[in-house]
């Protein structure tokens, strides 16, 4: 088949199983949009309000579905606008293929209109980026992009396609879905060593990160925990690796982790760390992290071994296969002393729940939790509300927690919720703050246009709460630039966008608003007003440990 570059893009997207792309048209992608107009595969294009929203939507789409998310942007500002989205995906190892148009090859390097060095900009924040200089390599390059994005440790890949390549023609040969580059399987001897350590220990903990979700290995976690009498502790990215209501799910550890989770890690004699990268937010003081434990670290990316924590046993390999082998070979055992000890930590869990008539953040999260189903997608933005969700929401299913962990991108949530909702066709709740929502609320327009069942719950403390919390605790209460007190009327704002809007000052009002929001299949914004001076607790100060935990 003799096809143009743009037609080849459509064919490759279809052959790679892409049903939805998120994007924004512009001068150097006009031909791609013309091909989208004509495309025979019914690939759906979602027009966002801003390219950043498109990149976050592709990311949310991928996190929810496990598929590669796709976004399209034009040259110049189109490229710079998706950079934040790519960096967000890169930090959390989310597979995205970003297709950008560029000026024709003969204009590259002449500072022509809307020209930026897309490759140069993308190098540090993508897994790889390709400049397609010739139509002859276009189909191959796009397939490589999909393959590289989803293989091994996943990540975003950018494909920059100059205008002349888009419109020239070549012979296209159809192909099927590209196979992943096969994962390295873990060394059997090392896995046997791990089994031996697990069998010999008395205080086991399994510590799960986002890699468990990304590699679809969640099914092994609970059985391993139960078989060897371990407790499960999670980084924020790994929270959905196991039913949060299971009594051995201790929740998130780290800076804003729960006391029992953080304490249990410190007291464990063995930590089986899977798909985690031990960032400083998760470990606190590295010298004190799991200081009594032998650490087994399994990851697909060998560069994670010894990067932040030097584990006693480092195993590189496919997580599912490794965990399945471990599950099969470890002994059944009970550790009653350990159970007693950990149950005791759980009793001491400080939930910092003030008794008050005011609507509090945990009330909001628990009320939504009650009304939602196990399949409801829960997206968040970044800040205090994000930590509260991680602490209080009881996730049941993997891939239902959509949040920017590594990069901590405020403004991530609205785009991500759209992507997540479109990938799953399921109701999606976005927990956001007045600060984060303010960054990219423009995407509410997209949700309205697409008639998406997205409920935006704004936890409004009229502050940039997380920064304020640090100013309060570490900067002598100098509240510089964190008191928003904006006059924005979120109810009217929602209505102006064509969504429904409600305000809740009590649990009862929130319940009523949620009943309405969950009844309709279009976007709804619920503003929940909370006190301005609530902190996220407990908190381990930077480079601290459970010994320095702040409870009040």
């Amino acid at each position, binding site marked *: 088949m003799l096809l143009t570059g743009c037609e080849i893009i459509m064919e490759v997207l279809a052959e790679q199983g892409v049903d939805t792309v998120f994007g924004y048209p512009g001068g150097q992608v006009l031909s791609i949009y013309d091909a989208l107009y004509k495309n025979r595969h019914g690939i759906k294009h979602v027009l966002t309000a801003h390219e950043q929203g498109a990149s976050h939507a592709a990311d949310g789409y991928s996190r929810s579905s496990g598929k590669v998310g796709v976004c399209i942007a034009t040259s110049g500002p189109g490229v710079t606008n998706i950079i934040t989205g790519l960096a967000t995906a890169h930090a959390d190892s989310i597979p995205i293929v970003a297709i950008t148009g560029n000026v024709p090859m003969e204009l590259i390097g002449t500072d022509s209109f809307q020209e930026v060095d897309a490759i140069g900009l993308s190098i*540090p924040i993508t897994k790889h980026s390709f*400049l397609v200089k010739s139509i002859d390599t276009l189909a191959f390059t796009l397939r490589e992009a999909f393959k*590289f994005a989803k293989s091994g440790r996943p990540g975003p890949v950018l494909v920059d396609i100059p205008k002349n390549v888009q419109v020239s023609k070549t012979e296209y040969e159809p192909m099927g879905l590209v196979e992943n580059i096969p994962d390295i399987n873990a060394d059997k001897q090392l896995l046997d060593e791990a089994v031996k350590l697990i069998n010999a220990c008395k205080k086991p903990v399994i510590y799960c990160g986002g890699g468990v979700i990304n590699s679809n290995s969640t099914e092994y976690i609970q059985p391993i925990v139960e078989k060897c009498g371990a407790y499960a502790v999670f980084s924020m990215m790994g929270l959905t690796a196991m039913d949060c209501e299971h009594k051995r799910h201790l929740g998130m550890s780290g800076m804003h982790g729960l006391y029992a989770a953080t304490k249990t890690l410190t007291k464990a004699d063995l930590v089986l760390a899977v798909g985690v990268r031990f960032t400083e937010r998760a470990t606190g003081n590295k010298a004190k992290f799991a200081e009594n434990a032998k650490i087994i670290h399994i990851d697909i990316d060998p*560069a994670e071994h010894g990067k932040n924590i030097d584990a006693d046993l480092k195993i590189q390999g496919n997580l599912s296969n490794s965990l399945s082998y471990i599950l099969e070979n470890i002994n059944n055992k009970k550790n009653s002393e350990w159970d007693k000890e950990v149950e005791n930590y759980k009793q001491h869990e400080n939930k910092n729940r003030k008794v008050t008539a005011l609507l509090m953040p945990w009330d909001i999260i628990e009320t939504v939790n009650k009304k939602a189903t196990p399949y409801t997608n829960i997206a968040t933005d970044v800040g205090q509300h994000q930590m509260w969700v991680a602490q209080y929401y009881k996730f049941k299913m993997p891939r239902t927690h959509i949040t920017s962990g590594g990069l901590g991108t405020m403004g991530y949530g609205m785009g991500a919720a759209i992507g997540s909702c479109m990938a799953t066709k399921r109701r999606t709740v976005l927990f956001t703050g007045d600060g984060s929502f303010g960054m990219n609320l423009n995407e509410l327009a997209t949700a309205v246009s697409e008639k998406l069942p997205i409920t935006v719950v704004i936890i409004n403390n009229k502050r940039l709460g997380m920064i304020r919390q640090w100013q309060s605790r570490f900067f002598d209460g100098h509240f510089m630039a964190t008191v928003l007190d904006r006059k924005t009327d979120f109810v009217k704002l929602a209505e102006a966008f064509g969504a429904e809007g409600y305000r809740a000052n009590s649990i009862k009002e929130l319940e009523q608003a949620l009943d309405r929001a969950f009844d309709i299949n279009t976007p709804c914004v619920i503003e929940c007003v909370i006190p301005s001076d609530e902190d996220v607790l407990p908190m381990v100060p930077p480079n601290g440990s459970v010994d320095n935990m702040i409870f009040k």
Partner: protein
Amino acid sequence: MNEKFSLSIVVTNQPGVLTRISSLFSQRDFNIDTFTSGKTEDEDYARITITASGDMRKKEQMIKQISKLYDVKKVEVMQPENTILRELLIVKVSASGEKLREILDAASVFRSKVVDMSPGSVCVEITGETSKIDAFLNYIKDYGILEYCRTGLIAVQRGKTCLYKNIKTA
């Protein structure tokens, strides 16, 4: 403890590869001492030699992070006892009369080559390991170095072993 070491990297011969590798070094705060790159006997691949310094952890991270790049086919630490390491220096020295004689003597002791002479100056080319080049520069510095330029190290393993034989078929 910091040590100096040299890495040989085989990459696909694509534009932008050098940018990616040097970007990685700045991104992760790795120190590069020298960086050389050139074609190889196979036109599809280029070979880069980097000399760098860092502790064990940095060195390990450097190798692992470079290995992850799409264009990188192989990374190897070159073991000094088993490696031919060479650097090229061209130095222009201000000299005439008796001084010129002394420089030419030194050049011959260091087995270097005089590649240009003009009234008042002489250009000397010398190859060798870094220490030899440093020693030569140290000796002639008092004569008045006008300018010099050095290539950075290139490295090849001794013996029959090749760094990237059969990469294509592997």
